[in-house]
């Protein structure tokens, strides 16, 4: 569960990125976070992942209070999250399998756990037959599936996808979104940050719209027109 209570964020250069955000995302939800560039979407993601600290307010992520989290607890908090990036961020010189095992070893999983878990996750994203391929040998959509598999492999409570379809054509984008929906159906909370209105509007999900550091709309089954909601 994620809980923002009156959160403000001001960067060192004086930019006020968030101006009193109140947001609650419960376990099992599928939420689109939408808004134009510079609206504060990335700041929300960075706050959730603990990359930056907040200036004012309260923030809870999967049971961790990020107001007074110790540096030792940050990695443990991050293990409850699976993060997907627009540019996939796969390691080119590692195979699909190795990219996944790398993520598992990073949190100290044993080789036995790695061998058991990866085939299941690859099957879930439909890439079980491409485990030995390198990222450069895969299409953009397949690379993003690998990134989703990597986010899932450590069995997180929540998947955060930051513009996951930004580098994909509409058909592949829809496939990725349907995959995320399927993952949500299996019980994982999903937060998708995007500004692709057509994609958002194809799904009947909760849409949280943000603009100029403020939430301007929060509606289940909401509609996003790319300008004012």
């Amino acid at each position, binding site marked *: 569960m994620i809980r923002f209570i009156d959160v403000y964020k001001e960067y060192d250069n004086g930019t006020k990125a968030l101006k009193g955000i109140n947001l609650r995302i419960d376990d099992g939800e599928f939420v689109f976070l939408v808004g134009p560039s510079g609206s504060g979407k990335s700041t929300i993601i960075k706050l959730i992942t603990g990359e930056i600290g907040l200036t004012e307010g309260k923030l809870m992520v999967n049971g961790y209070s990020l107001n007074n989290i110790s540096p030792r607890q940050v990695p443990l908090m*991050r293990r409850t999250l699976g993060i997907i990036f627009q540019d996939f*961020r796969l390691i080119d010189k590692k195979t699909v399998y190795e990219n996944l095992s790398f993520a598992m070893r*990073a949190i*100290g999983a044993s080789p036995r756990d790695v061998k058991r878990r990866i085939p299941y996750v690859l099957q879930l994203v439909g890439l079980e037959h491409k485990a030995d391929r390198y990222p450069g040998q895969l299409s953009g959509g397949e690379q993003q599936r690998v990134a989703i598999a990597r986010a899932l492999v450590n069995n997180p409570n929540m998947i955060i996808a930051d513009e996951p379809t930004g580098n994909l054509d509409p058909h592949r984008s829809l496939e990725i979104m349907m995959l995320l929906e399927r993952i949500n159906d299996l019980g994982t909370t999903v937060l998708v940050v995007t500004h692709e209105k057509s994609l958002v509007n194809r799904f009947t999900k909760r849409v949280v719209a943000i603009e100029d550091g403020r939430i301007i709309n929060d509606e289940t089954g909401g509609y996003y027109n790319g300008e004012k909601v």
Partner: protein
Amino acid sequence: MARRFDFQYYCSEGFHSIFTHGFMSFAAVCMIVACLLIMGSFSLVAVNLNHMLGDLEDDNLFLAYVDESYTEEEARALQSQIEAVPNVGQVAFVTRAEALDDFRAGREDNPLLADLPDEVLRDRFEIHVDDIEQLQATSEQVDEITGIADVNAAYDIAQGFVMVRNIAAGVAIVLVTMLAVVSLFIIANTIKLAFFYRREEIAIMKMCGATNAFIRWPFVVEGMILGMTGALVAFFAQWGIYELVSKAIIQNNGLSLITVLPFTSLAWQFLLVFIVAGLLIGVVGSVLAIRKFLQV
């Protein structure tokens, strides 16, 4: 599911990184070898000087002459007072007759010495000192004892050896410190390069929830391997160079003034010091290099 210390993973990543940055690893090992070789060479010179100084100290004695008016019994009675002086080691009494015999030894053909009376020389004490650096102070204290007419000590030779030893030790400390800093810098840069090369992987690891320790260990292992390799190469190079140099010294040492210790008598101590120094340089260099990168 999580394990606390994945030794196999750290070692394999550390080894892999060394070969990925082959040139920098080679440069780092060379720097450690150079540093340890210079440190070792100066230490060997210092150890040998110390050994020679020890021999000199063993042979080093000064003479205290007894007042001519003292009888032999009165002169012998002074021994306990001399032995009570600090830094005085072994003390031997030599009568004037024995001293003359010693003087005549090897000069039997000289007719001028044949009829010399015993009274020409004085009764004396041969006094060994524990610390050659305090030779002058000790001899002066002995000279102040009532009944001692004069002392005769070779201050210059003793001071010369002490000065050479101190200079060698001072130069060794300065050079070793400088080279250790340079080695640390090179190792730190090698590790920084490895870290920079793998920054994407590290960012991914952090996002997955890897702890700083998990990220740091492969780099520490890399530093340890580089340090250990440098130490072993330096040790065997040092051995070879020492054998060559000591052979040359022995061949050209007609007067046998210089004695050289065999390397085998110092090998274990040197191996231990080299390995500890190499590991320290490697580990400290790695930790310094990655400290600031782990703060996100």
